């Protein structure tokens, strides 16, 4: 009869591994620092400005046209003939990018949302957690091997790193 077990030390290490995975996910999903949020605001302004079709607006303003309305391109995927128009936000970003960026920065500064640690600090903590995770995974495999040497069978975790299971070096 071949029976698989989960020894206590393996069970404890798996709990530790699950905790470390949860900590890593939490850190990866943590709010940005103000500095990062400012940079993100700059990227947002740039991306929305690019959608504003300012060339088309200028062309309409400079060249003679019978209509006071700008002719926007049509959405080819729409059966109702919907126009692809820039939003008011796109236009504001395009017409006064710097001011829009400053306004967004002010919004960020005044916000009461929780703030994350700095990017450098987050990366340092992440590297530390990943080191701890690797160490716990190595300990887990060592515990499984010890149990196997004692004649027991233990299943590997579905997410266990094959390189660690196979002990193919590459270990700190």
């Amino acid at each position, binding site marked *: 009869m071949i029976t*698989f077990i989960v020894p206590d030390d393996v069970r404890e290490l798996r709990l530790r591994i699950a905790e470390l995975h949860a900590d890593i996910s939490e850190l990866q999903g943590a709010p940005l620092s103000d500095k990062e949020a400012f940079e993100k605001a700059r990227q947002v302004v740039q991306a929305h400005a690019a959608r504003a079709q300012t060339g088309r607006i200028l062309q309409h303003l400079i060249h003679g046209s019978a209509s006071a309305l700008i002719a926007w391109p049509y959405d080819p995927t729409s059966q109702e003939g919907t126009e692809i128009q820039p939003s008011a936000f796109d236009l504001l970003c395009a017409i006064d990018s710097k001011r829009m960026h400053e306004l967004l920065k002010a919004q960020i500064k005044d916000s009461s949302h929780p703030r994350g640690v700095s990017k450098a600090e987050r990366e340092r903590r992440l590297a530390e957690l990943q080191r701890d995770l690797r160490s716990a995974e190595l300990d887990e495999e060592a515990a499984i091997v010890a149990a196997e040497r004692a004649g027991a069978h233990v299943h*590997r975790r*579905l997410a266990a790193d*094959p390189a660690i299971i*196979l002990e193919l070096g590459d270990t700190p």
Partner: protein
Amino acid sequence: MEKTPEKLTRLRDLRQMLKLHAQALDEQIDQSVRELENLRSTQTDRATKQDPALAASLEAECATLEAEVGDLRSRRSQVGHDLSKLAGTVERLDEYCRAHGIGTHPRAAYGSGLGASR
């Protein structure tokens, strides 16, 4: 090319042993079920019905055999579960070795009759 890691070879062997174990349990279950059917058909014989002592003894035998079949099925289910988990691990390790050019790929062994398991 590096040779197949010893641990992977051991896990493949263990998977093969589990498969054999599952097959043996399947055969045992089939046999016990057949025995149970035979006993039940004897139970319905007119001669048996007329002999209360024999009927009671057959009833007891049937109950024992039914419990045995239940136990075998439960063990078979556990072995199936273990086999599926172990097969998943072996496949992941094989995949890793294949991607890193380590050892012989088990599919290469099919044609050569080296007994690679499916």
